């Protein structure tokens, strides 16, 4: 007797279940679609201009065909390496302080607030800050000042994700280490940070990928360079800068190079992130979730 309404309910439930699944799938597609679309468009516009010259030659003067972005690729690598050297240690150190040592203190709250504000500061303002901190005292543009600008931009992201990831480590793990008579700092470094390291690395990669495409802070720090230069003391080329210069130029040939540059920039970011993930995931034991 009660089977009829039960069957109806069961059908409604199944329907609701399918509905929810459909919404979830649709949202996933919405999230992925722009990325895929951008990538396809870049390949469509840029792939045809990619050749060996692009990777081994420096830009040709206006009016001459050909040339490449070798200097910008290497320049971006140098700038990002420098930025990571500055941003990753300071960011991770700050995050460790926030989560493990300063919890609840006024200083920690101030640091956390500052990091959040810094995260929201427009990148061009970061460029101005680096300009007045580094370029003005040095009296000229330099790779170093560009690295500083990007490094400062990495700090808040790295710092806050490190803190979040450390807070996710269960307290029982900390207590286990302390209970063995391990000094607190050692327990933090060897146990807590290690347990949270996959998440911390993700945070660093996020920050890295974000600044890799930054143009504005480089305009009056790294400045760009049409020639081969790897000195930290000299202006240096960077992919986003070069793309920007080429994209606003009136020449078709440069437009094509700009598309190719954008494609290469994205591929290099994906490669760098994958490489770091691969290297850091080796040696992690199975079942350590």
């Amino acid at each position, binding site marked *: 007797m009660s089977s009829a309404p039960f069957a109806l309910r069961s059908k409604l439930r199944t329907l609701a279940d399918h509905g929810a699944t459909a919404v979830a799938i649709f949202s996933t597609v919405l999230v992925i679609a722009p990325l895929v679309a951008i990538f396809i468009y870049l390949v469509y516009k840029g792939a045809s201009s990619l050749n060996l010259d692009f990777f081994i030659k420096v830009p040709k003067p206006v009016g001459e065909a050909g040339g490449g972005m070798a200097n910008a690729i290497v320049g971006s690598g140098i700038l990002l390496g420098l930025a990571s050297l500055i941003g990753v240690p300071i960011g991770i150190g700050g995050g460790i302080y926030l989560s493990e040592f300063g919890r609840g203190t006024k200083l920690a709250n101030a640091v956390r607030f500052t990091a959040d504000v810094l995260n929201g500061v427009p990148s061009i303002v970061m460029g101005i800050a680096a300009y007045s901190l580094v370029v003005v005292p040095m009296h000229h543009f330099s790779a170093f000042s560009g690295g500083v600008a990007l490094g400062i931009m990495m700090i808040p992201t790295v710092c806050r994700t490190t803190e979040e990831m450390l807070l996710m480590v269960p307290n029982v793990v900390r207590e286990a280490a302390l209970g063995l008579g391990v000094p607190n700092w050692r327990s933090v470094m060897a146990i807590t940070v290690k347990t949270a390291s996959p998440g911390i690395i993700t945070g660093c990669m996020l920050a890295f990928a974000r600044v890799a495409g930054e143009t504005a802070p480089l305009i009056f720090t790294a400045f760009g360079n049409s020639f081969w230069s790897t000195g930290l003391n000299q202006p240096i080329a960077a992919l986003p800068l070069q793309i920007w210069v080429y994209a606003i130029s009136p020449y078709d040939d440069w437009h094509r190079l700009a598309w190719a540059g954008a494609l290469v920039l994205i591929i290099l970011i994906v490669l760098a992130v994958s490489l770091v993930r691969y290297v850091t995931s080796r040696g992690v034991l199975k*079942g*350590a979730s």
Partner: protein
Amino acid sequence: MGVGIEVINLNAWYGTNHSLQDINLNIPGNQATALIGPSGCGKSTFVRCLNRMHETNPIARVTGTVRIGDVDIYADAKPVEIRRRVGMVFQRPNPFPTMSIYDNVAAGLKLNGYSNRRALDEIVEKSLRNSALWDEVKDDLRKKSGASLSGGQQQRLCIARALAVDPEVLLMDEPASALDPVSTSKIEDLIFQLKSQYTIVIVTHNMQQAARVAEKTGFFLNGRMVEFDSTHKIFTNPSDKRTEDYITGRFG
């Protein structure tokens, strides 16, 4: 070898909550002592005062004297030194998730700067044998993570980890409450064997467990120790009415 523990006028607070009030007792060496009582009565706080883990909580405070062997742990020693002599096993198994079984057991020694590989190998094997886990894990010592073991195995791993630093006292805070009956009985067998070498203090909700493993039992209620006597006496002829009410199941 296990040493005795003497507790004199111990008081502990969490913030303004006076969670332990005037505790006095003598825990004999090389025996198992059980602490029973309803949830929130202070028994976990009490064992955490015995290795100075209580004070790792920033709002916690403690007064009084605890003497382990001849060391007054609040006056004469640093917390880190005390915790090396007084091992602890927690309610929920808490192996280090990123470490192999071997590294979990060796963690206490390695993190204190001990690096003699051959000696470590021996200590790891001995500790795992003492915690009755060796035969189950000897083939995957370095291959498997501590977190990949079953709950009961994880808890025995945690016991091995505590034993590896060669403590004199082993504190166990409801070590079997998250485990199934088979694993529980393994832990109890273990306590039976271990008390010849260590002084064991075990907090438990399970009164049968207290009766099975412990020579002495203390009954805690509302932050005070109501009664402390031989386990036999507590469970057959308690002198306090409240103890009798609790063990006969009238409250708690």
